[in-house]
């Protein structure tokens, strides 16, 4: 076990998330009812995804500065951990939609599918999906690392456009922060999110992110072992 304190922190925080997330008091809201607790799981997934993609973005830029293949391995596995959390966020969103917007609010499924955040989150994730397709299409490792690092920067920028900008400027988003609501990022706005929710939400985000980092580092360490011969022969510029 290397540097295990943050792994323990992740465990403790997620234990707190599950316990506090189910047992602590939450605001009583119509339609949402108890499902408001999904904030600690569904929304936290997207936050963790964004942080993991940010780490991947950092390593992509670092690769382009130093051309060290280790940075490329880091960028790749943080991106894949980010995708895992993104897909989990999407699936949990589907489950949440089916009870609140479709069943309780009486919206048609086609109306829900037109939800801008749903469409653009899918686009954002697909752009990251193409990152892995791009990687797979190279045989030359240096070329692969260079091109995918450049593409990763583009994908990261597009993620912000598709997930955080467009759904908030077009009409018809039911997600918090959409047009017609208060705008901005409701989860980060202190006036918008209830303080009782914040008490579990922020630890939840940190806990899930650390778990994602842990999973990513396991895969990175595995690849560092398997690619050891390659890493030793390549020179650092």
């Amino acid at each position: 076990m290397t540097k295990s304190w943050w792994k323990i922190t992740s465990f403790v925080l997620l234990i707190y998330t599950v316990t506090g997330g189910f047992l602590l008091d939450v605001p009583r809201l119509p339609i949402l009812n108890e499902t408001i607790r999904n904030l600690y799981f569904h929304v936290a997934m997207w936050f963790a995804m964004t942080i993991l993609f940010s780490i991947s973005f950092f390593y992509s830029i670092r690769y382009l500065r130093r051309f060290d293949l280790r940075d490329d391995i880091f960028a790749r596995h943080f991106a894949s951990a980010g995708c895992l959390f993104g897909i989990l966020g999407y699936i949990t969103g589907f489950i949440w939609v089916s009870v609140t917007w479709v069943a309780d609010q009486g919206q048609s499924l086609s109306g829900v599918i037109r939800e801008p955040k749903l469409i653009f989150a899918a686009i954002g994730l697909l752009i990251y999906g193409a990152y892995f397709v791009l990687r797979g299409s190279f045989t030359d490792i240096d070329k692969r690392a260079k091109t995918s690092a450049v593409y990763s920067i583009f994908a990261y920028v597009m993620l912000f456009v598709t997930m955080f900008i467009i759904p908030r400027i077009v009409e018809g988003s039911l997600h918090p922060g959409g047009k017609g609501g208060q705008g901005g990022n409701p989860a980060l706005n202190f006036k918008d999110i209830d303080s009782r929710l914040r008490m579990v939400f922020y630890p939840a985000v940190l806990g899930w992110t650390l778990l994602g980092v842990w999973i990513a580092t396991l895969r990175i360490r595995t690849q560092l072992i398997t690619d050891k011969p390659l890493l030793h022969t390549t020179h650092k510029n």
Partner: protein
Amino acid sequence: MKTSSKIITVFLLMLCLTTSLFAQQTDVEMADTMRSNGKIYIVVAVCLTILAGLFFYVWRIDRKLSEIEKQEQ
């Protein structure tokens, strides 16, 4: 009165305040029955078990990987 006991008193007073607030907003349907009969603890116990199991599994992989890393050096 010591500072610690003051803090505890204030905390208890605040707790009373929140319970009264809680009692006022019962018009929205929540899983209150589940809470009153304590079955929510079963849900929490199940989720915690799954979480602990997952973490144990990841931890085992981590330890195995560390062993391999040591051998490689």
